[in-house]
């Protein structure tokens, strides 16, 4: 989207884990852009490298993992070259992260108020009183009643859905430019999931906050995001406008993934299945990573890795057979 300013630009990102048995490539030449206020869905099965990509943006890859190649530009600055000190000023400040399990994210022995105020004081030169004001405002915004009382409560006093609201309130504290949400509703029930996603969508929309939503659920992505990047075995295999990819997927993997959903088959009918399983990072085949499961696989697919390039349908896809 050329009409919007660029917020984040990831280019040729490679993340490797150096193990005794050899190096594993978890993320292999991933590139994508995010405009200011844009919502991107990063979809794929477990082990596809979606979360590692998310952690990579925040430079949170711990040993033996390492970003070995590529660049991550955020608000015009290169994140991969930053010192830990500089990075800390961006994490939880300009970029916030929301994780799957709110009970793991919140500190069980501190009140919600303490956790919120500490976060603000760590990033902003403001007084404790001002910080409390902001905390109250954010709790209000995530539709939690009697915020004053809530600040004095501990995480265990909230239900799962309320806790995730608190986590979102904390993510919003510093008015970040980008929120990375890693499976934010996977641990929640479906009625609460809908409430939380609606809230996240509404907040990102009104505050013009960019969002990277990492999930395995295509339906969730289709409701919340404007663009999708489908990941498979560490690479992006297809990316484009959400509606278009859901309606008219190009890459055989995306097609298979959508066809496997019960929503797309008459009740009781046989589901289309993709044979086999996604190869782990130590078993990614040469050529196209999907070639072991692809019904259309040809000779070139076994030798040359297809680049992610524009296709006729208007999306970008990494497939030799689409031209």
């Amino acid at each position, binding site marked *: 989207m050329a009409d919007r300013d660029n917020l984040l630009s990831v280019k040729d990102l490679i993340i490797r884990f150096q193990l005794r048995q050899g190096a594993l490539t978890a993320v292999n030449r991933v590139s994508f852009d995010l405009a200011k206020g844009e919502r991107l869905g990063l979809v794929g*099965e*477990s082990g596809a490298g979606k979360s590692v990509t998310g952690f990579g943006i925040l430079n949170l890859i711990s040993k033996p993992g390492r970003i070995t190649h590529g660049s991550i530009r955020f608000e015009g600055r290169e994140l991969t070259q930053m010192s830990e000190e500089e990075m800390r000023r961006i994490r939880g400040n300009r970029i916030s992260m929301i994780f799957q399990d709110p009970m793991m994210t919140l500190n069980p022995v501190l009140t919600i108020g303490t956790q919120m105020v500490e976060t603000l004081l760590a990033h902003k030169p403001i007084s404790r009183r001002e910080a409390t004001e902001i905390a109250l405002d954010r709790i209000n915004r995530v539709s939690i009643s009697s915020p004053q009382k809530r600040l004095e409560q501990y995480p265990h006093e909230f*239900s799962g*859905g*309320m806790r995730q609201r608190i986590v979102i309130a904390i993510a919003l504290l510093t008015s970040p430019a980008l929120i990375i949400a890693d499976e934010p509703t996977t641990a929640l*029930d*479906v*009625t609460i*999931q*809908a*409430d939380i*996603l*609606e809230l996240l*969508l509404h907040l990102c929309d009104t505050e013009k906050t960019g969002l990277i939503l990492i999930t*395995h*659920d*295509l*339906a*969730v992505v*289709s*409701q919340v995001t404007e663009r999708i990047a489908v990941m498979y075995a560490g690479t992006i295999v297809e990316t484009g406008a*959400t*509606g278009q990819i*859901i*309606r008219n997927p190009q890459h055989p993997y995306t097609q*298979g*993934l*959508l066809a*496997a*959903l*019960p*929503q*797309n*088959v008459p*009740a*009781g*009918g*046989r*589901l*289309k*299945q*993709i*044979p086999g*399983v*996604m190869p782990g990072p130590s078993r990614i085949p040469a050529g196209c990573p999907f070639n072991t499961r692809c019904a259309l696989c040809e000779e070139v697919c076994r030798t040359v890795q297809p680049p992610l390039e524009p296709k006729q349908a208007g999306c970008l896809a990494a497939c030799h057979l689409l031209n």
Partner: protein
Amino acid sequence: MPRKTLISIQNVVKHFDISGGWLDQLKFSGGRLVRRKTVVRAVNDVSLDIEQGETLSVVGESGCGKSTLARTVMRLYPPDSGQVLYRGQRIDNLSSSDMKTYRTRMQMVFQDPYASLNPRMSVRQILEEPIRFLRGTLRRDEIQEAVAAIMLQVGVDPDWRDRYPHEFSGGQRQRISIARALAVDPEFIVADEPIAALDVSIQAQILNLMMDLQQERGLTYMFISHDLSVVKHISSRVAVMYLGTVCELARAGTVFQSPRHPYTQALLSAIPRLGEQGFRHERLKGDVPTPIQLPSGCVFHGRCRYADGRCVKEIPRLRQVDEQTMTACHAVEEGRI
């Protein structure tokens, strides 16, 4: 066509005492020391019939008692009151040795294929054990043949029979769990969230396998799930549970097209919809109450926009509202919805 009832669940109640030892139960109240028990009312007065050859799905959110109900049907928990009948015979009060004959007829598949297979047993041992224990008359070569046949049927290469569970992927492991359930040739299978731990492309493989097996063997399924689009796909009938009670029981097609109970309506409206932007779901007020202190009357009344005085006082019973649907709701019964 009238079908035979295979399983009949009648007024089943299951509570769990979580108050711990008697020291933990002591509380100060009005200046006196009293002993008080804390009881989780997981399943309250549930009645359901499961017909032969059908897939009855039990849906609901976490903590609604669907897994407890499944385990009570399997007699993994004895019910506190009420009874479970298998082809008209009571099985909830049988001794474990009398229960053994029913164990060959009913089997269970669990959610997590990483936790439900013993990591120190090879696939051969996992599959031979139930056969040896429950079909003791078979000779050794017959057992081996049965194991190979069942592995073929679920799509695991019999040459891998000496491998251990960690050598298989999640989907393969779930196939092995299904094979273990099928090894004794049952007619009824309780599947408790069998695909919840699997990726989308693998879910389709397992669902297809379960539907194929049902056709080939005439199996009856009780399918526990929170994934409503999967339930819509494979069920003949659906029971919706909320806080330990069944609030709606209907043909799958009917319930997804015209849900009657207010909770079912809210639940179904919240299913993530592919290809739709934004949200149009019905928002429920508040949170699910704790099953330790159940609300009076209808358990849903605190969150229901149709609730009135009667709903607060009187527990609604599951009643036939039309040919396809039974609901437990005063408002539906009075024609207010």
